């Protein structure tokens, strides 16, 4: 900083008062500039978000109709719709939920209630989960392609393979949020149950879990909303891009909303871009609804202890 800085300027100087006054003014000016800069930096992210929503809305809204929601993809843009993609996405979400809820909650319970954190293997599990959370989703796609679609599991390009792959992508998030929800329940609740003669599992099952369900549910919904938007792993697991039928079971071929969007974006024809925008609007509406449910759950059921 310059000599105008009050901390740096000598108080013994003859014109100390004048210097100090000037210094204060200069600090005040710089303070204001700094706040202005922060406001600009903060608002850029929000402006881009607004531009994104408005731009896709303008491109996409005119295309949305009952026909769009209930038609299959087609080579003719005017006839194309997203029914198979929507139904595929619902199937995927069902598989993901069925996998991540038991697996995520069980792992969180193990780490919070059973694991001895001084043992090296438990620390390995924790660091491993942190790492998995930061592995790029396309790498999970590679795992899905090599081990789930082909290789050991050999499920083929099916709903089950896609759902399992997406489950692995979001599993670390579920574990972390479930752990936080469990930790938020005061130990006295469980200790009370133990003091009354409950076994450890009884205390967990009857006291700890019911108390942490809202937090866990919020985490699960947020994970689902992340899974809905994941595209890269599904590209590799190879949901076909042109599926003009709804999946009929876990072993059925499928497409999903983000994949359908990607496939339309990749088409050179202008009309398909508008279809992509319309599908994006549908996807964003689904996401916002899911998030609203999560926020509502959090506010409605979260206990203050």
């Amino acid at each position, binding site marked *: 900083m310059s000599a105008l800085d009050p901390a740096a300027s000598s108080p013994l100087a003859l014109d100390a008062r004048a210097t100090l006054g000037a210094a204060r003014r200069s600090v005040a000016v710089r303070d204001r500039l700094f706040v202005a800069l922060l406001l600009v930096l903060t608002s850029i992210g929000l402006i881009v978000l607004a531009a*994104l929503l408005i731009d896709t809305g303008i491109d996409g809204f005119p295309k949305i109709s009952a026909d769009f929601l209930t038609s299959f993809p087609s080579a003719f843009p005017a006839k194309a719709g997203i029914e198979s993609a929507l139904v595929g996405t619902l199937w995927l979400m069902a598989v993901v939920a069925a996998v991540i809820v038991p*697996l995520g909650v069980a792992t969180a319970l193990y780490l919070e209630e059973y694991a001895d954190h001084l043992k090296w293997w438990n620390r390995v599990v924790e660091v491993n989960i942190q790492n998995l959370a930061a592995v790029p989703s396309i790498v999970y796609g590679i795992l899905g392609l090599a*081990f789930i679609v082909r290789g050991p599991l050999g499920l083929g390009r099916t709903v089950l393979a896609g759902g399992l792959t997406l489950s692995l992508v979001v599993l670390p998030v579920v574990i972390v949020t479930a752990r936080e929800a469990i930790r938020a329940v005061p130990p006295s609740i469980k200790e009370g149950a133990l003091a009354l003669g409950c076994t450890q599992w009884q205390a967990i099952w009857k006291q700890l879990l019911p108390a942490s369900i809202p937090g866990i549910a919020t985490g699960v919904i947020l994970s689902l909303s992340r899974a809905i*938007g994941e*595209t890269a792993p599904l590209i590799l697991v190879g949901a076909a891009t042109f599926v003009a039928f709804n999946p009929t079971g876990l072993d059925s071929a499928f497409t999903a909303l983000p994949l359908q969007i990607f496939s339309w974006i990749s088409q050179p024809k202008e009309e398909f871009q508008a279809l992509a925008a319309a599908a994006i609007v549908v996807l964003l509406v689904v996401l916002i609804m899911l998030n609203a449910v999560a*926020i509502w759950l959090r506010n409605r059921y979260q206990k203050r202890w």
Partner: protein
Amino acid sequence: MEASSTSVREVAPSAEQVLGAAQRHIGEKLIRVVLTLAAGVTILVTLGIIASLVGETLAFFQDEAVTVKEFLTGDTWTPLFSEPEFGIRPLVQGTLIISLIGLAVAIPLGLGTAIYLSEYAPRRVRQTVKPTLELLAGVPTVVFGYFALTFFTPKVLGDLAGLDVSVFNGLAGGIIVGIMIVPTIASVAEDAMTAVPQGLREGAYGVGASRRQVSTRVVFPAALSGIVAAIVLGASRAVGETMIVLIAAGQVPTTSLDPTGPMETMTAFIGATGKGDVPTGSTGYKAIFAVGFTLFVMTLLINAVAIRFVRRYRQVYE
């Protein structure tokens, strides 16, 4: 669960009770085993990732058309041509350029947002801005890709900034990747700044510092390891991002440094090649894994740094 029916007054346990306790004991053990197995699944996932990547990567290097030397030092990447070349440099370079552009955008935006939210924003503003940032974080990357391709490149870079950019270009990809990681950087950095003890701020105010001086010279340095962690986490997400670059930056592996032209990242190559039905066992199929392995190692190293920094700032103040 049957315990509630047991009367406290009974002194000698009946045979049934002893049996019940034994069964409970076995039940408790069983539950413990089940939960431990669930936690073990996460280890299996990591092992699965490593096994799938390493196996096919080794097979890739056993292919007679490929040498390790060419992979590491060659500067042409054309694995699907009839006379293929396998120098990974164009993909690594594309990844680095786009990530650096992204960080150049995201670091000032993310840290500015973090300082504002942690040190300046009134409660009500914070309660509006934070959920909005979460919304930004929740936008699927395929949507960002669409936005970069159909709006950002033609309207902002082309019309507004007057740049002569190609339809697919690294600049739009990089900037939008940057926007995507702003919420990550902002929220981790804000956590670190909020964790700085109030006493440090009050001490600085006590000797006459202004709010800006407190923010930049007390809070910022005190939260530095958390801020570094935020940036490193953002970098790792930028390196691993697929859809934005696949859609907006193009699929042309190049050693050109010009960000207004198309470039291909490692993730975009994996996505573009995995999309087509590459036959299992072909060199192109194995190339997916070799590139994936390189990407995995890069992000693993970045994450290790991030985890170390996060742990450090947690230790200091929590």
